[in-house]
């Protein structure tokens, strides 16, 4: 995966995870163009589109668009699964997640993503393990004096 963007129906960016090195200017340009392109899609259209030399996989969950850019040889259908899994993780963590949760707790959204994907690849297939890791990290944040048991 090259990058993942989350944005609202008004085109406001809620999360940006870049797995390829690009300048701030380039990121802004890509974001702007891609957001425009995806928002212009009609509801009945399929979740895949070709954009520049990348494949874009996107899915809308309520008021948020989850948008991933993958390379030519990647499997689109599995990317949809990845997006879905991420949403499930957010849902489990926040309890019935909605856009506001992601707005007000954007760092947590990043932390969860970083336990699920690493360097653009899936690192953990077990939902349980991902959430456990987050839990441990949260605990560590709250009471740094406490010694932790190994996560697994």
């Amino acid at each position, binding site marked *: 995966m090259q990058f993942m963007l989350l944005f609202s129906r008004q085109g*406001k*960016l*809620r*999360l*940006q*995870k*870049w*797995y390829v*090195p*690009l*300048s*701030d200017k380039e990121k*802004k340009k890509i974001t702007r163009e891609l957001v425009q392109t995806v928002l212009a899609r*009609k509801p*009945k*259209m*399929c*979740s*895949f*589109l*070709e954009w520049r030399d990348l494949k874009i996989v996107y899915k809308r969950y309520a008021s948020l668009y989850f948008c991933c850019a993958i*390379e030519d*040889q*990647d*499997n*689109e*259908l*599995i990317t*949809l*699964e990845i997006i*879905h*899994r991420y949403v499930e993780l957010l849902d489990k963590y926040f309890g019935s997640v909605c856009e506001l949760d992601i*707005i*007000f707790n*954007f*760092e947590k959204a*990043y*932390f969860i993503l*970083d*336990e699920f994907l*690493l*360097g*653009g*690849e*899936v*690192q*953990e*297939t*077990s939902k349980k*393990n991902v959430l456990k*890791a987050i839990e*441990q*990290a949260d605990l*560590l*944040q709250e009471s*740094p004096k406490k010694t*932790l048991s*190994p*996560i*697994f």
Partner: protein
Amino acid sequence: MVVPSLKLQDLIEEIRGAKTQAQEREVIQKECAHIRASFRDGDPVHRHRQLAKLLYVHMLGYPAHFGQMECLKLIASSRFTDKRVGYLGAMLLLDERHDAHLLITNSIKNDLSQGIQPVQGLALCTLSTMGSAEMCRDLAPEVEKLLLQPSPYVRKKAILTAVHMIRKVPELSSVFLPPCAQLLHERHHGILLGTITLITELCERSPAALRHFRKVQILRLLRILGRNHEDSSETMNDLLAQVATNTDTSRNAGNAVLFETVLTIMDIRSAAGLRVLAVNILGRFLLNSDRNIRYVALTSLLRLVQSDHSAVQRHRPTVVECLRETDASLSRRALELSLALVNSSNVRAMMQELQAFLESCPPDLRADCASGILLAAERFAPTKRWHIDTILHVLTTAGTHVRDDAVANLTQLIGGAQELHAYSVRRLYNALAENISQQPLVQVAAWCIGEYGDLLLAGNCEEIEPLQVDEEEVLALLEKVLQSHMSLPATRGYALTALMKLSTRLCGDNNRIRQVVSIYGSCLDVELQQRAVEYDTLFRKYDHMRAAILEKMPLVERDGPQADEEAKESKEAAQLSEAAPVPTEPQASQLLDLLDLLDGTSGDVQHPPPLDPSPGGALVHLLDLPCAPPSPAPIPDLKVFEREGVQLNLSFIRPPENPALLLITVTATNFSEGDVTHFICQAAVPKAPLRLKLRLTYNHFHQSVQEIFEVNNLPVESWQ
């Protein structure tokens, strides 16, 4: 008074409370000023909160570079909260173009070596997200150590970090290859997953839920291992067949696995049976109610249609159904695939579907659909009449979207089907009478009416309902085209010439035509004016030749195989063929002058290549030539010498006046930066078989060059 800094959530509330963009900007600028001050003061307690706020406004698009150094400080802190936000900031604000990013290398190194897993996790995550090549080289040993540590949590992250490092610094493969064998024996899914990814990356630079994620990755790896590898491919055949048949497709995850299987089968050298299986899986996908699945199916089938044509053919009806998709990206793929599936046995049925599609398809697909239909019609037309009908239909439905050569092709086609002249001219007349706006159609119709006007008026045609047309109607229609503002200049040219031709085809007197011709003699359009003046002259001064000049055209040769040629009745017809044309009886020189003039102007009509002036008598009939003019098949040029930018080309011409002669032109070109001086080229030509011996001497790049060589590979066409 020290104002306590805003909490992150409070800031977010405030920003969201802003009613206008300007207000938002104000709030943010004010806060950023506070944050800057706080950074300057070096407040360690709230630093993480300040950075978090900064990261939020950064996401909204505001500048945040002044927070870069703060990331470093936070990462170096011993508090986990600080590190968490600090690393996040590093991933968002630092990038490898700025030297600042190197400063975190040391912190990462420290964090990797100390034993707290979440901290190691943060460091690895950051390294794998924004680690530059230099950082990767520096930290490779640390990551390597972590690969074989006891904690799976850290190991799986280390493995994927290794993947990133190899992508950045391929030489590191040697570092990370050895541990792989051991890692493959691990039972932890995360580790296995990572390992397979690593191996995949190692084997060939590229990239893999409980069962489903893992299966896909393994298949991906197989795909890469089996590519171009006969033996591995064979052993995989059974495995792939098994996976394909045993996967549960009730959920999308299952379909994803199946799709990966298909991709694998496509990539490796699989048995024919397996490929058919892949095609059938895709065929089933086409029937899936989920349009995403239909999309990947269409895309993949397009890749397979050349290599596994007959297998894909079996799914043709389903593919054609997909033309009706509402989603344009699907219907576009369905169109491409449908066109690829047309063959001589299904052409009639397919064309029907495609014509129907043409009528209702979205505008951006129209041009492709039209040209696709025309191309397929050309390749597979069962009969000429069907072909003509098809082109006619395309021109009527999507006339403005067809390519420029459609007109030429259609006139060529009609011209070559003598038995269909009456039919064609009637159909075209009817079409024209209904609508004169579609330019390609109008042009062809005008040409046909001009050529075969007599057949139009003759009344009987078995294939079409009898049509009673009288001369005045025909003339009126052409005049309408001539006067219409919708007609392009080229179209008007066609109409004018057609009118002129009718002066010999119709029975009535030519006053009306003469009138039109004389009016257009003062037309502002130079092209039309010129024609009109010439036609007028024809009436006034050369009336005795008018009939001969306006006779029906002989069939014009096109590039490409010509099925049959009709030699039109004419006194001085030249039989056109691929070889040099047979010279004909010379014409009166005045006539040639007039015709050369006409041919020169008519050359502008459809941008054909300039007419070769010499193929003599054939020009008698070449009024209004829409197609490429006849010429002897040109002999291809030949490059015979190349050295350091100096090139020698031979080009061949047979002068038509003397076909026994072969003129060879030697062209020497210097593409290099250095001058070539004292260039001498000598040629010797032994009589038979035709060979050429060349000797070159010249100075180039301060060296004197001498080359002697023989040219043996003269093109076939140059031989006698």
